[in-house]
């Protein structure tokens, strides 16, 4: 059909607009596909993971050595003994773990399973310490070849001690070596792992071998935290691209409708020539088809290039092996969605036009310039260019709405990133910098009298919530503690009552009575909570030292921890572990490093989207106002004067679009965090730092400036003579 020869011409004539649309489609589909595939692969990986690793149900330690065979056969469970030893490497610690083959089977993420003389490390540690596959490392006198990177099921999230909040890959890593290799070390410790119906056998073991330590897998944060994070990942990482996907397609719908409507005279001509409505509408369905297909092809390319690095990044962070296959069905969904929505846009646009007679269409306007009630505004007092802008805005309300929505979409993406960063910053500030007023903290392995030292002491005790099984740490503090600043709103509170952290409160959703089980002696007790304090990390309860000592039947003045402003000189046999605030902060920084790259990427992406949207809107404005522009040129206006007359009304709607996106993003993030993040021991306050907000607006403003610069060239190209002639026809 001769009609279809036009398509190429129309597209080349308005190539920037079409390229813009195609890019929007491509970005939207590829983001959607990448994250949906990622979620799909992660779901598969997690279900495979627990099956292939045969993760333990509990680990324990006994006074006497077990007769594994006998217990296994009698109780129909699996038991395996596993050795481990901490060795130092440079200034960090590696926990060497014996390779097992029954329970907690390590999975290789990269490289080959170890043989004798070989070692496999967790990837984050390897990366942080610059260790590559094939390297040789020497650990306390024994040399190993690095055969690959590994994920150890009960150490998916490799923290050094169980109470650590964040893993610090520069300081601590885990690795597997063969049984033969590990037995060469002194200082070995071991645990038994058990899998099966644990409850019956636990009693038997305790009676016959005396259990010294027992830890159910649900109490192992190295596994539980990671598992929860991994399970939440799909939700989180699908929701944001899905939101973006929805917003862009609404936007595309609006934009394409406007672009098709510009074809009014062409449609009029075809109509007048005798083409039927149906033929014309079919013709205009080619545009959506072309945009969707090219968009999807581009999306496929984007996806193929980005899927692997992104997956690797997540794998690195979550430490389990995940495939990086692209699930092409998502591209197909995207393509279908694109075709449907854009066809609908094109169909409804041509439908609206074709309701009119060919002669009306040939005039280039379906309705006379309607005078709205707003036209009657008395603008006499204003300066001319203000009047002009107001008149332009009144006429172009729908254009303004398009612009608001476009900027809103771009800003939403931008702000999601900023909010993530801002919230984490706020979290760190609120919890660590504003709450912890000490430099060092020492945990002791026995009670001492608080009066025997001249530092501030505290008691720490470990419980679990009877209903939810959550681990809860209880601190007993001095009433006038100077080391912790607990706040409620603006006011600092004294430790004269029992307080609960915000994060624990949100998780348990109650602050009255909590039934606790003491992890050391399984003793049950009930605690009445008085109030909530503004601490956003940790399942923690704060209470007066004497009260805590009383309920756990310990001596009134006894403590097992010390806060201090400087390193203390204590007998190292007494110390269970010690922490320095500076190092904790550093480990946060390291953990958050990748977030920064994400932010930059999101910033660039939203800049591109905003640019596309603003570009299309400005070119529509210029296209729709060709006559006015050429008249202004005839009158002797310079291009930049015309530019500012025609385009400066865009600033206000852009600001509006940006401002509207702020509460929207807050609400949106709050709702996803409420549903998906509450299991992690963090309650994140959603905050957008004002400086980031300004920076975000600077990005949007730059977009406006760039598009103004581009449109100046377009205005320059409009020929005065040609337009006058066109109008006279």
């Amino acid at each position: 059909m001769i009609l279809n020869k036009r398509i190429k011409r129309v597209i080349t004539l308005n190539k920037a607009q079409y390229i813009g649309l195609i890019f929007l489609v491509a970005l939207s589909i590829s983001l959607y596909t990448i994250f949906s595939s990622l979620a799909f692969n992660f779901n598969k990986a997690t279900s495979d993971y627990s099956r292939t690793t045969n993760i333990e149900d509990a680990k324990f330690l006994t006074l006497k050595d077990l007769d594994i065979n006998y217990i296994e056969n009698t109780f129909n469970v699996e038991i395996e003994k596993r050795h481990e030893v901490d060795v130092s490497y440079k200034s960090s610690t590696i926990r060497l773990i014996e390779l097992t083959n029954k329970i907690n089977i390590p999975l290789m993420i990269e490289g080959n399973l170890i043989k004798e003389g070989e070692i496999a490390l967790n990837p984050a540690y390897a990366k942080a310490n610059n260790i590559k596959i094939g390297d040789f490392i020497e650990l306390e006198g024994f040399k190993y070849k690095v055969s690959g990177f590994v994920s150890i099921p009960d150490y998916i999230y490799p923290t050094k001690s169980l109470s650590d909040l964040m893993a610090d890959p520069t300081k601590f890593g885990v690795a597997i070596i063969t049984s033969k290799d590990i037995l060469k070390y002194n200082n070995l410790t071991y645990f038994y792992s058990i899998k099966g119906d644990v409850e019956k056998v636990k009693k038997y073991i305790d009676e016959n071998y005396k259990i010294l330590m027992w830890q159910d897998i649900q109490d192992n944060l190295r596994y539980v935290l990671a598992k929860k994070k991994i399970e939440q990942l799909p939700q989180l990482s699908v929701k944001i691209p899905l939101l973006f996907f929805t917003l862009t397609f609404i936007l595309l719908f609006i934009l394409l409708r406007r672009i098709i409507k510009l074809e009014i005279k062409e449609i009029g001509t075809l109509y007048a020539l005798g083409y039927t409505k149906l033929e014309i509408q079919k013709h205009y369905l080619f545009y959506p088809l072309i945009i969707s297909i090219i968009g999807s092809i581009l999306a496929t390319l984007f996806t193929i290039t980005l899927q692997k690095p992104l997956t690797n990044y997540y794998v690195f962070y979550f430490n389990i092996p995940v495939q990086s296959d692209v699930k092409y069905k998502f591209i197909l969904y995207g393509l279908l969605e694109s075709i449907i929505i854009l066809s609908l846009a094109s169909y409804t646009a041509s439908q609206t036009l074709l309701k009119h007679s060919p002669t009306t269409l040939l005039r280039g306007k379906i309705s006379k310039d309607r005078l709205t009630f707003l036209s009657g505004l008395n603008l006499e007092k204003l300066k001319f260019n203000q009047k002009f802008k107001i008149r332009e805005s009144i006429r172009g309300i729908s254009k303004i709405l398009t612009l608001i929505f476009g900027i809103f979409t771009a800003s939403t993406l931008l702000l999601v990133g900023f909010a993530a960063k801002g919230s984490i910053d706020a979290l760190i500030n609120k919890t660590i910098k504003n709450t912890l007023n000490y430099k060092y903290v020492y945990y002791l392995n026995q009670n001492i009298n608080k009066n025997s030292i001249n530092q501030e002491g505290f008691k720490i005790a470990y419980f679990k919530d009877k209903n939810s099984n959550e681990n809860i740490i209880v601190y007993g503090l001095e009433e006038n503690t100077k080391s912790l600043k607990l706040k409620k709103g603006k006011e600092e509170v004294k430790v004269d009552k029992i307080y609960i952290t915000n994060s624990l409160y949100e998780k348990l959703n109650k602050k009255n009575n909590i039934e606790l089980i003491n992890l050391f002696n399984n003793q049950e007790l009930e605690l009445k909570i008085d109030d909530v304090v503004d601490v956003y990390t940790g399942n923690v309860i704060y209470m007066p030292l004497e009260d805590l000592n009383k309920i756990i039947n310990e001596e009134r003045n006894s403590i097992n921890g010390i806060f201090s402003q400087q390193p203390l000189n204590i007998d190292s046999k007494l110390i269970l572990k010690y922490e320095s605030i500076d190092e904790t902060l550093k480990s946060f920084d390291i953990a958050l490093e990748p977030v920064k790259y994400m932010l930059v990427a999101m910033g660039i992406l939203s800049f591109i989207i905003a640019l596309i949207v603003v570009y299309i809107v400005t070119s529509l404005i210029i296209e729709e106002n060709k006559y006015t522009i050429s008249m202004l040129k005839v009158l002797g206006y310079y291009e930049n004067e015309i530019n500012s007359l025609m385009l400066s009304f865009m600033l206000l709607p852009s600001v509006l679009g940006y401002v509207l996106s702020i509460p929207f993003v807050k609400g949106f993030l709050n709702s996803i965090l409420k549903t998906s993040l509450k299991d992690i021991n963090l309650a994140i306050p959603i905050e957008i730092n004002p400086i980031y907000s300004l920076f975000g607006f600077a990005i949007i403003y730059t977009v406006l400036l760039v598009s103004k610069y581009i449109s100046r060239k377009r205005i320059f190209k409009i020929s005065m003579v040609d337009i006058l002639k066109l109008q006279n026809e």
Partner: protein
Amino acid sequence: MSIQFIGVTKEYKNGSNIFLALNNISFEAKEGEIVAIVGPSGSGKSTLLNLLGGLDRATSGEIIFDGLNLSALSDKELTKYRRDKVGFVFQFYNLIPNLTAYENVEVAAELNKNSLKIDEVLEAVGLLDKKDKFPQELSGGEQQRVSIARAIVKSPKLLLCDEPTGALDYKTSKEVLELIDKINQIYKTTIFIVTHNTSIASMCHRIIRLRSGQIIEIKENINRISPKEVEW
């Protein structure tokens, strides 16, 4: 001072075809004159006017007005030339639809510090009472008056009218012509009127006749009549 066209040619290229819309034309007119440009449709009248108004550039030759050689001006200087010196009136008025009559005049007045008072100009074209009306609320004749007001508000030295009465009825046409004549008398504006109506030419000081891009006659009109007397 005078207006000079010296060997002016305007070519339009259409693929490999070259079309001469103006073919080596030369003429001279005096300042303060009303000059009629007549000729059949397609003879190059509008082209000539557009070149003189700085809307387009000649392919070769020189156009001199007010001591300026238009061919030698940069784009920016050409814009400044239009801004300061030229007023346009078109057959189809070309008003900006979303601005009121007053604001349509103001668009031009903005450009020049020495612009006339907008109300006075609207008064002069007889439209002061309709100044808050939008173009679509005005008749053709009224719109053309607004466009004349817009053209003269910055008191240009040169007023270029391309078939100013082409879309108007007899009575309204005469009113518009009287207005143009009045402007010429009051402000001493040099005026070019393009028309294919020879009768209109009889109110002008000088008549240039074009055919196929060439001048076939230049005549000084000694028996100039007032627009009231023009009949067709």
